[in-house]
């Protein structure tokens, strides 16, 4: 895989997760206490750094075929989950991910809880809300960056892409002090779902011993094939949804 494709795949996936974490931290800081929320972010970053420090070298030590089988399989399961949700959203079967609505819900929930001090943290709820949000979304960032980086023997570039995504999104969040609702998150999730599925397909099959026709040149074909297939599924589901909605009307009019 070229460095550009690796960077783009990891950057997009991590940016999507960072947007979601930013929404949660903004809600914790705005409704409760900024200092406690930022302590929560810091604690989450330390937790994730420890995880990367433990898993990074371990993944690098695994033989390439075994790594590609394990990671390819996981990426494929993960990618199909993303793609499934993205297709359901794009076809209208699932509500679109709306950062403004999520922000409003988090804000209302945060305002309803009484304040509790624990040690240096003046607002424990703000701390745990920010911590949980960052760790949970960050785990996906770590998983994607580590698997892509280890598979392509380029962990530094994957880490750079993940870090760049987090910094760009965090700066945007600080600048607007509002949920990043203008980020085309649903479209980005669709693209990331396609990429995870395609890379998982390619690496998983290679790890299980298969040889792709054309070797690495097959990867862009797989990416394109998955994209076209996913778009076709969106169109088919939209048609089926429209048909199921119009059926009762037709019955009434007839």
């Amino acid at each position, binding site marked *: 895989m070229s460095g550009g494709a690796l960077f783009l795949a990891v950057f997009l996936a991590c940016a999507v997760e960072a947007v979601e974490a930013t929404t949660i931290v903004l809600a914790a800081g705005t409704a409760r206490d900024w200092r406690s929320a930022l302590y929560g972010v810091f604690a989450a970053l330390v937790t994730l750094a420890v995880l990367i420090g433990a898993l990074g070298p371990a993944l690098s030590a695994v033989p390439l075929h075994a790594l590609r*089988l394990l990671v*390819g*399989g*996981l990426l*494929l*399961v*993960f990618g*199909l*989950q993303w*793609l*499934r*949700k993205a*297709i*359901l959203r794009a*076809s209208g*079967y*699932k509500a679109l991910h709306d950062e403004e609505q999520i922000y409003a819900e988090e804000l209302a929930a945060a305002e309803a809880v009484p304040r509790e001090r624990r040690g240096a943290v003046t607002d424990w709820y703000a701390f745990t809300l920010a911590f949980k949000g960052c760790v949970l979304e960050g*785990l*996906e960032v770590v998983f994607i960056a580590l698997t892509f980086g280890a598979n392509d023997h380029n962990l530094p570039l994957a880490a750079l892409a993940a870090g760049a995504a987090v910094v760009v999104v965090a700066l945007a969040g600080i600048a607007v002090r509002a949920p990043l609702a203008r980020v085309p998150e649903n479209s980005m999730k669709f693209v990331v779902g396609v990429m995870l*599925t395609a890379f998982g*397909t390619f690496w*998983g*099959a290679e*790890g*299980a*011993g*298969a*040889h*792709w*026709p054309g070797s690495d040149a*097959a990867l862009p074909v*797989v990416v394109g*094939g*998955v994209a076209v*297939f*996913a778009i076709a*599924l969106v169109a088919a*589901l939209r048609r*089926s*949804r429209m048909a199921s909605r119009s059926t009762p009307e037709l019955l009434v009019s007839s």
Partner: protein
Amino acid sequence: MIGRLRQFCAFWYDFVIGDDWRVAVGVVVALGATYGLHRASVPAWWVVPAAVVVLLPYSLWRASRSR
């Protein structure tokens, strides 16, 4: 303690497997079949893409039916 362990397992199940366990099982079966065909010296690159072509519409069909 058991409650926390259950929560921990539920988190990892949701993180890795997600909404449809059949997809995860299908992926494992497809990778196993790829390995089996490779060991039998039969070209096996097509198995995983074929699994995607079957699993994704099947999972979407189930999800759209239940909504």
